[in-house]
């Protein structure tokens, strides 16, 4: 890539910083230049986030239809998987899978709910209702 060809599109990272990019100058020597972003890359991020938004919505519907407990919703909302939830809560994976069942979830003790709430960075009340207040 030639130095003049370094993309200067707007990207999410641009809110924070420009990035260093390596490219060649007119004599073919490598040099660095700052870039504000590349639309090919920001679109790839958008695609990932659109998919996440959809997964969150699907999970919410499942909880509303009583097919899953709110834990499923928060796994998606926090971009986690069962392995990550297990690491944060200290529960076994199969225990978490059981807790995804709404009727099992309803019987969980306050203490166990608190462990989930901590992992998802919400209050127990928010965990139960999926009503999260954040920025």
């Amino acid at each position, binding site marked *: 890539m030639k130095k003049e060809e370094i993309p200067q599109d707007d990207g999410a990272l641009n809110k924070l910083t420009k990035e260093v*990019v*390596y490219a060649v100058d007119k004599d073919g020597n490598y040099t660095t230049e*700052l*870039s504000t972003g590349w639309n090919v890359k920001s679109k*790839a991020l958008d*695609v990932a986030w659109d998919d996440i938004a959809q997964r969150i919505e699907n999970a919410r519907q499942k909880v509303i239809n009583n097919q899953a407990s709110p834990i499923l919703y928060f796994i998606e909302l926090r971009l986690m998987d069962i392995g990550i939830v297990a690491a944060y809560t200290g529960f076994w994976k199969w225990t978490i899978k059981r807790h995804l069942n709404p009727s099992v979830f309803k019987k969980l003790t306050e203490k166990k709910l608190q462990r989930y709430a901590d992992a998802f960075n919400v209050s127990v009340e928010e965990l139960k209702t999926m009503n999260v207040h954040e920025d």
Partner: protein
Amino acid sequence: MCMKTEFKHLQAAHCENGVTTNLLRSVGVNKLTEPLAFGIGSGLFFIYIPLLKINKGPAIAFRTMPGLIFKRTCKSLNVPVVRKKFSNKEAASKFLDDCLQAGQPVGCQVGVYYLTYFPKEYRFHFNAHNLIVYGSQGDDYLISDPVMENVTTLTKYELERVRFAKGALAPRGQIYYPASHVNVTDDQLRKAIKTGIKRNVRDMISIPGPIAGVKGISYTGKKIKKWKDKLGSKTAGLYLAQLVRMQEEIGTGGGGFRYIYGAFLQEAYAYHPIDELPEISKLFTQSGDMWRSAAVQAAGIYKGRIGSQADYDMMGDYLLEIAEIERKAFLALRNIKWNS
């Protein structure tokens, strides 16, 4: 409490390169640059692990395992390293404070999910980000994140949370730094460059099995041609977006690590005046350009502008062609007659 160590922040294209370069410069390896650290650490790689999923997409890496660039570069330059992991947050925090008190800037492995200064769009559960803590001021730690133009801060709580992020590659408070001031001669650098290149040739050409190195690139190319049929258009698009996101890991700027390697070979020429080096550098520029074209093609598909089987075939063919260029480049590197 206010502590500040002798440290100069330099922005880099990639976090581990940057941490390696900046930490080693702080102990006296003044000639080290980001491309040299990347090349000496044999950073260029490719692997596609079909059975592993990351964020429900394919697991693809364009560079070597996290941690290896620092480890190999220090080893090649004979720099002793201190590396510590912790099971206990208080111990981790105390160790950090002791280092800073002693004037020692340190590298930390962190997770980006709770890295508050990162834009939300980049905050996934990715646990192999690297930054340097170079001091503290009241409740704040002074942070040099090498992918950023400027230094920043994190509170004690924020830093602890990212140092103890959970999940794959959990950092477990990991801290690392060069243990003593060193005097690295040009001769040592010359040797380290040669070792780095040879090891990179091995990693890209000689790893058995189809998924790693240049073979991994053509393997992925062939797989991509089947993605539309096998996964359906939507998932195939998501997979391609993930491929591009891995290639364009923050700040590797289009064509990712291939350009940095090209820059490395040009810098290597100053230490080994062998005419092939700048010539082979051009091949990596060419490969980087092809990776960029492939990303543009992929974007056409995940944006929904194109998406026929022919478009996937073309995408796959890009990778097959890239594999050929990189094979040629690494074979040429393997055949170099080193003078020293």
